[in-house]
């Protein structure tokens, strides 16, 4: 049994975090893994929407969320947060963007700060395919339409009517059940 580490206070992430990280074998080993993820996180903060392979996107999503949540929790005067931002963002003007643009944007959010959407598989086979990783609130047009259901579509109208009829029938049957009991007493 392990005791939780107390040295840092971290915010809860609002994405699904898997128990084990992906290893991403590279000639440099674990250092290479972090170097590649660093490039992905930098690109995400720079372009706000990137298309890449799904495994890397999922790992980078975790790191990006951690970076933004730390920045929101601690602000830019916190030494450790600044060191992390300095490491994870290769271009130094992006550190300014993180604290001056992204933190105010995401301060009041109750949901995650990034969105991961599955993209096309360019060739057949059993592999995860591409994914599009984007920061929420980006200026581009939405990838998926905002609402899927409109109440004035025919099937929704019919369903709403059916639900109303069911409720009415149920209420009537309840009153029928209670009346004979009352009359007995």
């Amino acid at each position, binding site marked *: 049994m*392990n*005791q939780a580490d107390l040295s840092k*206070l971290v*915010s809860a992430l609002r994405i699904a975090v898997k128990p084990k990280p992906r290893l991403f074998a590279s000639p440099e080993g674990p250092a290479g893994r972090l170097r590649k993820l660093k490039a992905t996180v930098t690109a995400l903060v720079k372009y706000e929407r990137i298309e890449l392979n799904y495994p890397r996107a999922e790992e980078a999503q*975790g790191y990006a969320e951690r970076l933004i949540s730390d920045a929101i*929790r*601690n602000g830019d005067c916190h030494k450790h947060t600044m060191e992390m931002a300095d490491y994870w963002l290769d271009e130094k003007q992006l550190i300014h963007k993180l604290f001056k643009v992204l933190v105010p944007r995401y301060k009041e959010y109750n949901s995650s700060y990034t969105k991961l959407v599955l993209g096309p598989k360019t060739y057949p086979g059993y592999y995860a395919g591409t994914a599009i990783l984007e920061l929420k609130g980006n200026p581009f047009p939405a990838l998926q339409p905002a609402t899927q259901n409109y109440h004035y579509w025919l099937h929704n109208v019919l369903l709403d009517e059916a639900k109303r009829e069911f409720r009415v029938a149920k209420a009537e049957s309840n009153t029928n059940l209670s009346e004979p009991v009352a009359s007995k007493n």
Partner: protein
Amino acid sequence: MLRRVVLQTFRQGLAQSFFKRNAASLSESAVTQHPIETSEEASEKSGSKQKNGDESGNTVVVAPPEFRFMYPEFLPDPTMERRNKLKEKLERMDMLQRRSIIEIPEFYTGSIMAVTVADSNSPNKFARFVGICIQRGGSGLQAWFILRNVVDRQGVEILYEMYCPLIQKIEVLRLERRLDESLLYLRDALPEYSTFPFEMEAERRLNNSVVPINPIKVKLRPRPWLERWERQNLQGVEDLNLPQRYYDRAKEVAKPWEKYDLMLQYRKTIPAEEQEKIYAEVHSQLQQQDLKRKIKRRRGPSSEQ
């Protein structure tokens, strides 16, 4: 209402973060954020219950921030595969129940403690051991700590499980912290650093609100050692005076990127929101138990008369 509380507390929170229990780890530098600051205002010296109003007007109980250092075993094991909210809740209930019977005082690695255990094989039926706490770990009812002492020139270490029903009494003779979280290097240090007399009496603390940090630098015996101490970035050890090749090899083998691995840190910690929830749940009962014991201690000598 909430904003005004925050403005009032900022100055006090800053002052108190210097003078209060020095609970923040040596690596943390800045004052912590919003929800924890508001609890620091009213907590003062004894860490009393703080009621904040949230937006709906209901009072929200918040435990003082140093609770996570005083009672680290209430936090669950961060390994995700083993998390189970029901199990953790039941464990916390059992821990509080045990704490209502036995006083398990606040202690840190580096504190000198005395533990009395029920032992059917000893002539007195109790066995008492005094030692310095070199490590503590485990979560929930399996929380443990290791006490080390040198008895008749033989180093002895005993691992005690804090919630074991055989334990009769846990006393803290000297409450202090060291520069490291784990003092396993005392095994390779000169024996005088691990020797404490069994007749040692509990020391009275001059300042109740701050836990002192003992900045002692321990001298190690000549090599061979049990572990490669030069690779562990120890603060509480004197200069190891090793040949340069040891330090070169330590650099080759080091993993400097782990410091920046945010997800690795995340998987080893319980998020702050969860910590607050857990301590808000248990802290009122812990405070009540503490109060009752204080009253008993004050009444004790007078009731005997």
